[in-house]
């Protein structure tokens, strides 16, 4: 067990080449220690695959109080523990399950094509800004039943709350609080408009009194809206970027997907494992525990490194290699256990639809000759910009 804190300069390496970074960390030990400004205790970074899996399923950790996003209330359901957590998941899981989310598929396909219409004749695009950001944003318009003109606000709020601009921590906090407040007002007004309506969007469904149970309060509904928005935009954007980065560089793999659309689903799973855009989840120990034999104190901040688990050769032979036929592929890109990503079914539908629609229109493309820039702020690893070029049709 390493007790020397990780140097902060390694953060850039972690974003640029996480496979190499985490291989080095795992070689040093199953748990690493990171000093973070503002924290009295170092953060335990769990990098061993089996220990990550165990931590995801352990009741010794909570996400309560882990990130504020400029608010004092929790986001629901991530920041809640059982038994209240169970109640929220039982209300939300039926609304976010596959057979319900699939109804958004035509909407997603139509938006993908509309975005492609906007740049196909140009013979190039900035994939991040022109496709990867607006596609999940527009999906949320469908999910929440929002008008088109609200898209820019949704994206602005999400950016200001997750990556607040500012020279100091205090300045950033003020931006977050201001935008969180503005967004609270927006969501409250949305909930009031949807309540009692007959729409089939997720907000209207949540305002209906669930059978036999307590109706959700306005506060709880706002907390859920924050969760869905913060959980469903940057994550999908990041995943699309990594998938296209790989596919742009491997024409024969692209051709395989076009020739056999049945391959798209397993290809998406393997690209999720390989890229694991939500690289880690933040927790806090509620009692003294241990990870891979390393003692963890009560109140210790913990970073459960899902990327490292999905890159652990003990779990995935030749982990840096992308193999669409990898068997088995039991990865944790959507987490696991009780906090398994609520939006995972919607995310997969978005990713599969995006792959299919894009490659039907633009089968051949490459990355323009630039060095790609990676960041992993808020533990979401993103490639931005991603300039692509193709022969004009």
């Amino acid at each position, binding site marked *: 067990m390493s007790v020397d804190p990780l140097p902060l300069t390694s953060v850039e390496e972690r974003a640029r080449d996480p496979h190499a970074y985490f291989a080095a960390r795992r070689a040093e030990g199953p748990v690493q220690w990171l000093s973070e400004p503002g924290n009295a205790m170092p953060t335990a970074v769990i990098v061993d695959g089996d220990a990550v899996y165990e931590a995801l399923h352990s009741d010794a950790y909570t996400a309560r109080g882990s990130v504020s996003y400029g608010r004092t209330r929790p986001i629901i359901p991530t920041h809640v523990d059982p038994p209240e957590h169970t109640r929220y998941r039982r209300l939300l899981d039926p609304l*976010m*399950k596959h057979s319900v989310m699939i109804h958004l598929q035509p909407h997603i396909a139509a938006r993908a094509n509309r975005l492609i219409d906007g740049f196909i004749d140009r013979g190039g695009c900035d994939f991040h800004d022109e496709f990867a950001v607006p596609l999940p944003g527009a999906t949320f318009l469908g999910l929440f039943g929002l008008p088109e003109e609200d898209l820019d606000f949704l994206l602005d709020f999400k950016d200001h709350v997750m990556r607040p601009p500012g020279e100091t921590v205090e300045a950033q906090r003020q931006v977050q609080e201001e935008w969180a407040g503005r967004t609270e007002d927006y969501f409250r007004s949305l909930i009031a408009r949807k309540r009692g309506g007959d729409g089939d969007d997720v907000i209207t469904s949540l305002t209906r009194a669930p059978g036999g149970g307590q109706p959700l309060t306005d506060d709880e509904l706002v907390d859920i809206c924050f969760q869905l928005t913060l959980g469903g935009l940057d994550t999908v954007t990041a995943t699309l970027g990594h998938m296209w980065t790989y596919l742009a560089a491997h024409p024969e793999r692209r051709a395989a997907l076009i020739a056999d659309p049945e391959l798209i689903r397993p290809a998406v799973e393997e690209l999720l494992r390989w890229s694991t855009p939500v690289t880690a989840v933040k927790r806090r120990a509620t009692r003294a525990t241990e990870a891979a034999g390393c003692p963890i104190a009560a109140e210790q901040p913990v970073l459960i490194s899902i990327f490292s688990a999905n890159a652990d050769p003990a779990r995935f032979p030749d982990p840096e290699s992308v193999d669409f036929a990898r*068997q088995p592929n*039991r990865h944790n890109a*959507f987490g*696991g256990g009780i906090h398994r990503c609520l939006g*995972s079914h919607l995310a*997969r539908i978005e990713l599969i639809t995006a792959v299919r629609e894009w490659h039907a229109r633009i089968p051949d493309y490459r990355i323009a000759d630039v060095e790609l820039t990676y960041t992993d702020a808020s533990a979401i690893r993103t490639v931005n910009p991603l300039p692509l070029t193709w022969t004009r049709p």
Partner: protein
Amino acid sequence: MRLHVDDARCAGHGLCYAGFPDLFGEDDYGHAVARAGELAGADVKDAQTASDNCPEAAIEIEPA
């Protein structure tokens, strides 16, 4: 052989019912429901693949 899903372990990833809709259904919460009855032929191999890929190790193939 019979297919069994341990609902206490199932977290609703949905890989099984997405990949093998003849063997698994989706319940109200997006958790998996195993098809009842005897598993035979190609179903056995598919069931094993589903089990191997379950991130929660929630799928079991039991002797009848």
